[in-house]
């Protein structure tokens, strides 16, 4: 309590200082005094919006966490904000009348679609937290990738997205404050009315049903309420991450025990958090405008907070992921299948190199024309394929080392870490060469992975928490990226391009770097496959079998981080190939480490070659980034994967 009082006081002081500054500038005599207008229509509503939006997000987060019994549920981890934002961007481009009519309606539709998709995906798994948050992250990342592609495809036209993606609290009237305010009031009253069902929803399904509650109706009503609150904030000021996550957790940590206490405390803490962040943002803002939008700043503060909280969080009891892990039939002749896959890969590459569109429509190139076109297509195809292979290898390593079937470079935030490293290098050096960019992204990836594993090593973290840590890392790095991208300069275009993953500028040099990387990384891994085999039995078994677990683990992790950094340098962080290729390999019966590794690498290259071809052909002559396509393919597969737990859980 005392702490929050102090925080509120600090925020109020910052606000008071701004108001005082503005007040002293006003001229009492004049009827139309612009400085007074700025005070009344700029500063005051801004503070109101910060307080109201913070409270709305706090309440929304509390409701979602309660209903889903998931301590990490909130508008941004569930993809609600990203879905709303994508809906708004799409509507701005293709149905401007809709946005004009009701931007809040469009945002609500987008947020609802996102949450409906996630619930549908994870329904059969009983809305198990890890699956829910993972699906949320998948939806959010894919929506962000699509949004980035829209910005790129439309050049300058959508520069409002820069601002709004970061969540700026700048106000010029009371409209936003009123729009958020009345919805918050309704939401709060509804939450009070639904207090009893809400309390019961904190229990498990069986006890809740025993109390005679129409479980699903209350659930849906409350989820709709939470989505409504969150998407209103998105429509009015943009994405503001982490307030919805942090406020309820902090409320609990500050001693709010009963649900009623939490219902009061979470919105209050959310309000103070956002107000304080916004005060700090205004403090560092110069004359030329704000350098960091408030929304990005909250994520910047919230990411570390989440990482710090993780070991302290009490997760609800859920069946462990391990149990639901499928054990597909092992192939009798794995190497035959791998050879077949290899053949398939070669076939796909040949098609990708020769089939295409030109001035006169579709054609299979041959002879001189082929030789000519191959000079253009080969570097792209090779870069995409090699990166697919590296990501797949990294995925196999990470999944085996962490004994976690849902871990991958993308999910653990290693790709995003590479992006943050790249952003740092670009910010420091302006125009950096490929070597420096690679150094920056490798360092970023490595740091991200080390931090996650360090957190994972604390207090016997299960596979669920490792994933949560990855999601926090993803969110933190994405916030850094959003902040840099919102600067709107040459570096931000480079980062946007990186985010969507484009191989368009690939040259022979990059192709050879990627191939060398693939060989250097995969050959030792294939040779050391026995380690992977042993490690996946767990550390104690591995030790008993005489494996020096720690150095082996560290070496493998280093290799995986390098592979992901190198790959994401060329195809962006969002491909999901590292997640799905190892799964696909397992599904076709490649179970032993070496066979799985080889199969996954081939499958990874295959997936990327297909993505690259699609990205070139679908809106010819306009070219979409390959990373975007790969992540769409990955999203579809992940959908399938999450829905597949049916039989085991049913």
């Amino acid at each position: 309590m005392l702490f929050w009082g102090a925080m509120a006081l600090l925020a109020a002081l910052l606000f008071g200082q701004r108001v005082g500054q503005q007040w002293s500038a006003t001229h009492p005599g004049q009827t139309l005094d612009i400085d007074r207008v700025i005070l009344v229509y700029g500063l005051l509503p801004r503070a109101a919006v910060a307080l109201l939006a913070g409270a709305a997000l706090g309440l929304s987060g509390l409701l979602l966490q309660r209903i889903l019994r998931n301590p990490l549920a909130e508008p941004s981890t569930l993809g609600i904000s990203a879905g709303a934002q994508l809906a708004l961007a799409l509507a701005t481009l293709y149905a401007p009348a809709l946005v004009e009519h009701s931007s809040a309606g469009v945002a609500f539709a987008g947020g609802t679609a996102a949450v409906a998709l996630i619930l549908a995906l994870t329904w059969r798994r009983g809305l198990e937290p890890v699956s829910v948050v993972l699906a949320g992250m998948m939806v959010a990342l894919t929506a962000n990738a699509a949004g980035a592609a829209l910005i790129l495809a439309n050049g300058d036209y959508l520069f409002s997205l820069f601002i709004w993606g970061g969540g700026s609290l700048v106000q010029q009237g009371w409209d936003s404050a009123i729009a958020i305010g009345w919805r918050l009031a309704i939401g709060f009253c509804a939450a009070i009315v639904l207090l009893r069902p809400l309390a019961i929803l904190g229990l498990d399904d069986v006890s809740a049903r025993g109390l005679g509650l129409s479980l699903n109706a209350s659930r849906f009503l409350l989820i709709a309420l939470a989505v409504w609150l969150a998407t209103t904030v998105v429509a009015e000021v943009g994405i503001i991450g982490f307030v919805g996550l942090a406020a309820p957790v902090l409320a609990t940590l500050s001693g709010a025990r009963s649900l009623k206490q939490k219902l009061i405390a979470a919105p209050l803490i959310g309000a103070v958090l956002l107000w304080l962040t916004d005060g700090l943002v205004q403090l560092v803002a110069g004359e030329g405008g704000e350098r960091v939008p408030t929304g990005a700043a909250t994520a910047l503060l919230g990411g570390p907070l989440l990482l710090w909280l993780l070991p302290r969080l009490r997760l609800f009891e859920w069946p462990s992921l391990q149990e639901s892990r499928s054990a597909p039939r092992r192939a009798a002749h794995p190497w035959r299948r791998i050879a077949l896959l290899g053949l398939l890969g070669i076939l796909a590459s040949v098609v990708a190199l020769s089939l295409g569109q030109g001035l006169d429509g579709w054609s299979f190139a041959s002879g001189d024309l082929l030789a000519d076109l191959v000079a253009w297509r080969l570097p792209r195809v090779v870069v995409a394929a090699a990166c697919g292979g590296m990501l797949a290898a990294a995925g196999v390593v990470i999944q085996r080392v962490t004994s976690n079937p849902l871990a991958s470079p993308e999910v653990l935030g290693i790709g995003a870490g590479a992006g943050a490293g790249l952003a740092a290098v670009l910010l420091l050096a302006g125009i950096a060469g490929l070597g420096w960019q690679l150094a920056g992204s490798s360092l970023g990836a490595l740091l991200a992975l080390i931090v996650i594993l360090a957190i994972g090593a604390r207090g016997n973290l299960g596979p669920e928490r490792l994933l949560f840590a990855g999601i926090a890392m993803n969110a933190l790095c994405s916030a850094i990226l959003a902040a840099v991208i919102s600067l709107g300069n040459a570096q931000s275009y480079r980062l946007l391009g990186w985010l969507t993953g484009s191989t368009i500028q690939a040259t022979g040099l990059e192709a050879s770097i990627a191939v060398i990387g693939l060989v250097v990384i995969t050959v030792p891994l294939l040779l050391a496959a026995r380690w992977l085999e042993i490690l996946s039995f767990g550390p104690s078994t591995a030790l008993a079998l005489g494996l020096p677990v720690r150095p082996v683990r560290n070496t493998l992790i280093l290799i995986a981080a390098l592979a992901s950094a190198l790959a994401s340098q060329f195809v962006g962080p969002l491909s999901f190939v590292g997640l799905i290729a190892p799964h696909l390999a397992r599904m076709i019966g490649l179970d032993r480490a070496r066979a799985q590794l080889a199969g996954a690498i081939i499958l990874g290259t295959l997936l990327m070659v297909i993505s690259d071809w699609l990205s070139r052909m679908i809106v010819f002559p306009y070219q979409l980034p390959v990373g975007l396509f790969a992540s769409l393919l990955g999203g579809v597969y992940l959908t399938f994967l999450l829905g597949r737990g049916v039989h085991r859980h049913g």
Partner: protein
Amino acid sequence: MSFKPSSYGRPAQGSADRTLRRLDRRAFLGIAASAFLPALVSAGPQRLAIIDWGVLETALAIGAVPLAATELRQFARIAVEPAVPASVVDLGLRGSPNYELLRSVAPDLILISGFYEYQLPSLERIGPVLTLPIYEAGKSPYPLALSSMLALGERVGLSGEAEHYVADTAAELQQLRTALRSFASRPAFLISLGDARHFRAFGADSMPGDMLTRLGIANAWRDDTSYSAAAPVGIEALARVPEASIIVIGPLPAEVSRGLPDNALWNALPAVREGRVAVLEPVNHFGGLPSARRFARLLAEAVAAKAAHD
């Protein structure tokens, strides 16, 4: 940037040959009535492909119609003029043109601006590349656009047209400057609106900003806006120079046209209260001379329309 702003990847077919051809064309043009000029010289002597929009405008303005150029759908919406003939092949996005398509177009000269120099390694594999600088950090774009047009005219054998256009531009500018004399008594903000709450200012290093000064109007935005790095600014910043007028360059996003009339702060700005706001049709923010002229003309028209209205 590690690449030199290299220009002529490969020497042209021999300068004597070129001079001869230009002389022929000059002689021919001398006979033709000047009114028919644009129609008659619809194709330059070279097969051109153009990556940059500012350069595309420049080329079209002197009658050098390229075989291919980038993002033509968006160009028609934002740059608007000059109109692009239907024969021009769309190469896809400026940032990622389709090199395969460009290769099959087989241009013998590819035109870019400094902003696309990172594509040089790829482009030079297809044909010689000429970089025409229009925007350089800390330099006024108008003189650069002017010399780029002359350089292009020289290169493609349309020097006469280029000189003519440059002279025309100077004359029109002089004329518009006179027409805008009353408007020039106050400084003006030159902005484009991103949403109903933020704008981007055009400083002296932008083409519209440079034109503003050349039209005799002081730019109320003092800071440089350094090429594309234009951080979005809250609208209240427009109150810093209360006596300034506000010129808004289109297009206006739907959200803005809806939200701005209700924006209390916007309505309280002295310029808005006193009706000193002009909203212009879209102008290419990073254009060449044609965009510069378009901006000046649109501004003069808007001011004249306002004067007639009052």
